Every structure is written in C-alpha cells, then in structure tokens.
C-alpha cells in the first residue's frame, strides 16, 4: 500500500504548489501508516527531483519522455495508472489546477476509484475516508466519503502552509509503453503570459470593476499591483467591455482564485463575483458607496473614491517596503 502524488513541473522546475501537494501526500501517507511516492513526467533534472525530498517525498518515479512536457490527459493517465499499480497505491493525489483536473478524473474512471475534487482537509480516517471541499462556489462546505478501495484526490493549493525540511528523494526511472493513440492530441501553438505572476497562483491580487470607469484609469491599479508584487484581476463587465483581457476575469464564469490578499476596487460585490474570490484569506474593499454589498464580505473596507484612495495606498505600501527592507 502507498500514496502517490503527481508532481507536475513547469519547464523543468517545481512550483510551490507542487511542494504543498507533496507535503500533503506525505502527511496523508503518515496518517495511514504507509509511504508516499511521487511521479514526475517529462524533462526535469534529477537535482530538481531530489529536492522534493525536502517536502517529504521518499521516492520519486520519473518517466523521462519528452512527449510528456505538454500535459496530455490520456498519456498522463497511462503513466499515473502504471505508477499507481506498480506502487500498489491506494490514494492518488494531484493538484486541483488546470492540469490535475484534466488528468485525475480519467485516472479515477480507469481505476474505478471515487474522487474528491478540490480537497481542503486531510482525510478523516475515523469515519471512513472523509474529505472536506467547498461547494456552491464557496458558499458552503461538503464532507465527502470515498468508499472505493482506491481513492483519488485533487488538492486545493494554498490550503496548508509549506514547510521546507531536510531530505533528498531517491529517483527511480519508470518505463511506460505508450501507443500512438496516447499522443493523438498535437500541440500547435503555446502562448504564455510572460513576466507577470499567473493570476491562479498569485498570493496577492489587485482587482478592478466598473467603478474604475474606463481602461485609461487602470494605471493606478497597475502601480499598486507592481508595488505589492501582485497580479491583476477584474470583474466580468470589465472583461466583456474589453477594458481588460478575458484571462483576468474572476467569478462564477471566470477564474476562481484563493489568494492571501484580494483588493477589490470599484467592484460592487455581486454574488457571482464573490463566487470566484470568497476563498481569499483577506479581502480589502475600496468603494465610494457605503452600501456596496462587497463590504459584507470584506475584512477591511475603505469608503472613498478609487482615483484618490488607490494612489495613496500605493504610496503607503512604498513607504512600508522601504521601512521593511
């Protein structure tokens, strides 16, 4: 018996959320009295892989096939199922992100395993295998029991703090025999947003709504975001009016984010907007209308005109950063 974690790398390096997933997998394994193995796919160096040991990985299986450098649900599923069978894995963990969500359901169906999507707790083994997740777009939690012998979890990152320890993982090469069918999907073009922190991973987010009046006023939000090292987001009407690109749109029909800090400027706080951001640890609302519904969901509120408040906040952050160098 064992626990296996899918560790997906980004151009040869592992991100913090992968460390978090490995650490989560190690803790789950410990609570079940077993060991954790990690699966790495594609082109990534042994040194990078060994580093996963600092987060509790004992053994890492590596399928060093460059065709796996792009996430492909079918080939990834075959690799993960092969690894899980080899390790006699009873629990399979992937991240609840675009890649994990493309792969985990296939793996679950292939192994006839129950799946919890977006776990935010360790499994409670005293009642079977019960895992907590958010439902109704953050308006409630559900406790889901998996009854099948094999269990699959997609883990919501930014749930538990990451602690770096000692240790180095052993690397074992794994051979997986792929057929042509496994790579029927061909990648034609890749467009990555370069430089900026991807919104889905940002710990700090500055977001603007229709109260910003027009795209020409976004400069003050960009200044604030830059000063904080934050990513930018927006409400749906802002993206629909092409003031901002669609990938910045958050909410029910846009992205779902869970940053440590969400600063909402000129956003009324409609329920569909909150659905995408109410997992944020701390919410700051800047709005000139004291009756704006967003204040009910906020930790800190500033009633005032964004055009005046935002530049002042940027100055205050600069002052703070200089004092805390």
């Amino acid at each position: 018996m064992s626990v296996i974690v899918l560790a997906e790398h980004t151009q040869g390096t592992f991100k913090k959320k992968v460390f978090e997933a490995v650490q989560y997998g190690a803790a789950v394994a410990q609570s079940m009295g077993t060991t954790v193995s990690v699966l790495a796919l594609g082109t990534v160096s042994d040194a990078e892989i060994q580093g996963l040991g600092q987060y509790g990985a004992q053994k890492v299986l590596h399928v060093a096939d460059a065709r796996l450098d792009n996430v492909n649900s079918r080939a990834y599923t075959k690799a993960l199922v092969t690894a899980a069978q080899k390790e006699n894995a009873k629990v399979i963990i992937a991240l609840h992100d675009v890649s994990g969500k493309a792969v985990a359901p296939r793996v679950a169906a292939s192994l006839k395993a129950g799946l919890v999507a977006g776990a935010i707790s360790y499994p409670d083994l005293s009642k079977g295998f019960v895992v907590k997740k958010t439902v109704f777009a953050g308006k409630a939690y559900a406790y889901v029991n998996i009854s099948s012998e094999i269990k699959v979890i997609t883990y919501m990152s930014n749930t538990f703090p990451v602690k770096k320890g000692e240790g180095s993982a052993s690397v074992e090469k794994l051979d997986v025999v792929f057929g042509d069918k496994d790579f029927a999907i061909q990648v034609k073009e890749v467009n990555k947003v370069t430089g900026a922190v991807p919104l889905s991973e940002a710990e700090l987010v500055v977001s603007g709504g229709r109260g910003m009046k027009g795209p020409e006023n976004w400069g003050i939000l960009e200044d604030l975001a830059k000063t904080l090292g934050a990513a930018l987001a927006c409400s749906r009407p802002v993206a629909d009016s092409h003031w901002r690109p669609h990938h910045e749109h958050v909410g029910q029909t846009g992205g779902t984010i869970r940053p440590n800090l969400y600063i909402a400027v000129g956003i009324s706080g409609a329920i569909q907007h909150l659905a995408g951001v109410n997992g944020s640890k701390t919410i700051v609302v800047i709005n000139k209308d004291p009756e704006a519904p967003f204040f009910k969901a906020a930790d800190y509120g500033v009633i005032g005109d964004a055009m005046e408040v935002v530049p002042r906040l940027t100055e205050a952050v600069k002052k703070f950063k200089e004092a805390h160098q």
Partner: protein
Amino acid sequence: MKILVCISPVPDTTTKIAFSDNNTHFNTQGVTFIINPYDEWYALVRALELKEAGVATAVNLVTVGKADAEPIIRKALALGGEEAIRIDTESNDPYVVAAQIAEYAKSQAYDLVLCGKESIDYNNGVVGGMLAEMLDMNYIAFASGLDVANGVATVKREIEGGEETDSCPLPLVVSCQKGMSEARIPNMRGIMAARTKPLKVVPAADIQPLSNIVSYDLPPAKTGVKLIAPENMDELVNLLHTEAKVI
C-alpha cells in the same frame, strides 16, 4: 458529425444555501434551478454554432436527472438541438453521472461530446474527464475555442499561465469555458418549437456510487468589516502587515 451536449441542472446562482436533516441534505425548497451556465453559454451555444455553420449534422442534449429536471431540458431545447435524453436518476457522485452518460452514449457514435468546465453546485469539473475515459476518447479540458474541419478538431485551451492550441482527430470530449461563444437568449420561436421536440426518458443503468456526501456546513460568517478612513492608508498597510499578516 453528431454532437452530444451534457446539461447539468443547478440551483440559480443567487440561491441562499441551506441544509436539512441535520445538515445532511441540500434543502431545495424554494430553490430555482437553471441550466449550468458553462453548459448553456459555452457548450450548447458552440454546438449550435457548429450546426448552423454546417459542420455538425445533429446536436443532442443529455441530462442525468429526475422528472423535475425536465423544465431545464426544455429550456435548453428552446435554444436549439433536435432531441434531448433524460437518464432517469440523480446522484452527486460524478462517477455515477459519467457512467450513466457513457452507458447511453457508447452505442450512439457521437463524434464530439461537449460539457461545461464544472457544475456550479458541487464545483467538481470531473464528469467530462471520466466520460472520456469510459468512452475511450481523447479529452481536452478548459477549452475557450473549438473548430472542426475534416474530422479534426482545433481546440484552444487554458494551460498553466497561458493558452495552448491543440489539434485532435474526433471523437473527442471537450469541457468548455468562457471565450467559446457569446451567450444567447431563447426566442419565442425556439420556446414554441421546444415544446414538441422529443425528450426521451432512458432508465438508469445499475451503477454503484464510489463517493457520497456525508454532511455539509456553512463557513463562519465574517466578523464584520473594519473600516479605515480614506486618508489613512498607512493604517491599512499596517493592519495588513501586523493583523492580517499578508504583506
């Protein structure tokens, strides 16, 4: 080319969430149900566009649900599509939903199966991937663009920190999200036509759930917003540092 669109009935986005029977059931009393927005705005509308463009020959809809889901299916048919299939059971285990659809779809030779990125009630995003595995099809998740020519689909999809364009021969399962198409509003003619379109009820296959929801609870209410004077941004920064510990 035949397209199957998976339609999930979900509580309206503004629903106040409450539970009954000692927090073990979602209380549907007084709750209005709608078509899951991703299924309606993106999957269904894109399927209809492909039919209007002469690329698809048929668009069928499928829902796993009890009789109370029928108004939702009719609403979807009012947007378009020739016929709908309702598989007569209910489950909040995504494995059961996927297996029921797969059981029906495997004999129907669909070239393209479209579903939404996730249901807005249980926020899983799982049915499409499971269905692809069960039907032995390729699967592309989080698509924001889809075209088909000569039996090959070109799909734009979200990846870590960006976007990717893939090509893949049919058959294929795609989960759809924003960017795919613009929302449509059903017109009177569509609503009238939907009344007489076939809605087939298929008995459920015998499939055991692999997971079940034991109980629910509500997040603790926010303790109340702390207001800071607009002149005093130093105080806000200080609170974010010392109290919230986020900067």
